[in-house]
């Protein structure tokens, strides 16, 4: 174990800004990318469902 306690862990031997600035942005990016993709997927699915519904209504009315 490297650390005497949580405070020492977060201080990173004086390199807190640099270590957490790196790991933080990486974590943020790797969480944001799948979330943005999930939104893109639900958008296209909504469009496809709406088109399918419009087609069905067309067939029923004709």
């Amino acid at each position, binding site marked *: *174990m*490297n*650390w005497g306690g949580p405070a020492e*862990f977060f201080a*990173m*031997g*004086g*390199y807190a*800004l*640099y*270590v957490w*600035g*790196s*790991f933080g*942005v*990486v974590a943020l*990016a*790797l969480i944001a*990318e*799948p979330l943005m*993709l*999930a939104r*893109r*997927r639900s958008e*296209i*699915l909504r*469009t*496809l*469902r709406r*088109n*399918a*519904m419009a*087609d*069905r209504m067309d067939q029923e009315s004709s």
Partner: protein
Amino acid sequence: MSTALRSPPVMPMQDRVIHWFRFASPASFYPLAGKMMPWFWALAAIFGAAGLYISFFVAPTDATQGEGYRIIFVHVPASWLSMFIYMVMAAWAGIGLALNARLSGMMAQALAPTGALMAFLSLWTGAFWGKPMWGTWWVWDARLTSELILFFLYLGFIALQAAIDDPRRADKAGAILALVGVVNVPIIYFSVKWWNTLHQGSSVSMTRAPSMAQTMLWGMLLMALAFWMYSVAVALKRVRTIILEREGHAEWVRNLPEVKP
């Protein structure tokens, strides 16, 4: 002797042949990618948890760089993946160009944003490592500049494809750009050997023993595996979305349970 009892000829070998080309059609790749995705997410999570544990709690403090060196555990995987994804993307683009296969172009398109993200993370974490160790966020040296060019190549590929309305023509134009850009990858990789740069030489080399502690090396490899599995999972997720966007007119898309009203 009656012929009616004779059974049809048995061809056991033929049943076992996997028809790989079947998966080249978006209609059969879409469900396959959906089935593979959870496994890659799980592997990414497992390798990531193990890698982070080693990065922070097992790997010892560095003799010269103190705790600041721990940036290596995200910097090196992001850099490796930025180069590796580019090669895979260019390969798919090239296959798409040669065989005129729709799915290959979609795969290249699905990989580009993740590759760009990895290149960005490599530059970002590099800057946050350079500041405390070299005293500067950025320097125009060979390694850093060629990695920046890689980032711009990804952005160029994405922008070029977005600018062309016909998706098949966009695939072709993008493929040529991707293939020309491949020349940059070995330049990045060997830049620390070919030129005198501020960037340190590689800590892991194929020709000699790694110049770092065993536990540090393990942490780095586990994190690289986590980044790799993440990239596969997220690319599969994106290619599924691209398939829906581009094949929305097809009958099989309309019959998907997630589309059927």
